[in-house]
């Protein structure tokens, strides 16, 4: 899902493009900036067992970055968003527009201009 190859138009907001857990994590990271794993589980109230795999996936897909820190003798991951909300929105939009042009050519372009005229 994170790779944007599965888009679900029937869902709301970010979950059109991300899984519900991914969307919640990204939303929390955009709001807070830097977060520890424990803060993430608290904020999103998703249990650690479900959040851990998703965090690995988000980091691998390049939507989040993390660094390891030793805080008073304990090892902690500090997560931060790899890109701002605008940048991710930009990436998703470009990718979808590219795909529309790829599939429908002139018809898609015609609709883009109609759409911007309407606005």
């Amino acid at each position, binding site marked *: 899902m994170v790779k944007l190859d599965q888009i679900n138009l029937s869902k709301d907001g970010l979950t059109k493009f991300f899984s519900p857990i991914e969307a919640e994590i990204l939303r929390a990271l955009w709001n807070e900036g830097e977060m520890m*794993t*424990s803060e993430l589980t608290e904020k999103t109230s998703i249990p*650690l*067992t479900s*959040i*851990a*795999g998703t*965090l*690995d996936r988000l980091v691998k897909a390049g939507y989040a970055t993390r660094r*390891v820190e*030793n805080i008073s*003798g*304990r*090892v*902690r*991951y500090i997560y931060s968003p790899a890109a701002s909300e605008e940048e991710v929105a930009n990436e998703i939009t470009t990718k979808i527009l590219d795909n529309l042009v790829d599939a429908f050519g002139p018809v898609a372009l015609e609709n883009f201009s109609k759409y911007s005229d309407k606005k």
Partner: protein
Amino acid sequence: MIIFGEINCFGFCLETSSIAHLVALFFVISIALLAASFIIKRPKQRLQTFVSAQVAVLLAIAATFYTMKCSEMLSFYLYLAYVGITGILIFGVVRFYDRLMIKRLDAKPAGNIMEWVQKFVNQLASATVYYYDSAAPRAFAAGRSIFVSIGLLEVLDDDELKAVLAHEAWHIRNNSRTPYLKQLAIMTFSSHKSSEIEELADSFAASIAGREALSSARNKVDKVFI
């Protein structure tokens, strides 16, 4: 039947050969050693007798090979290949598996980020603790190395981490025996339950870090540590 033809041929060649008694001697020795390796309790001597039994079988096969004038030796080639492959598995792959995992996981010595972890394990076994980049809390032992994910270091407190490390250290201490037990199970077609090994590792971990720490660690780790 080809196999009966081979056995007949083997018997015939053996009767006419001058070193038939040598072949028989090697086979008797190997069977005696194999039987002894079942009885002996101490892991190290058990392994030694088992290896010697294999060597005796190899010698017997070599002598048979020399004696045989017939060409249908398929079954002996197969056994030879089997012994060779299991030998490589036991003494090759198991020994170098951890090097492979360090590369694949891009693991780094855990002493770099948590000093006491390596010191604690040093008291239990001669093993190096490595950490790797993953939020999923997991731990496992391979070769002479213990691997823990950063996710594991995050969620466990010191006592729970000690329980997990002791569990893995037990595996390292008995690694020389474990693959041998597994191979023996394959050779003799007996079932050897890996859950028995895990139970032994757990009771060792409980004696080091306490049963409470062990069970609370088990509850926190999503995949059971192996």
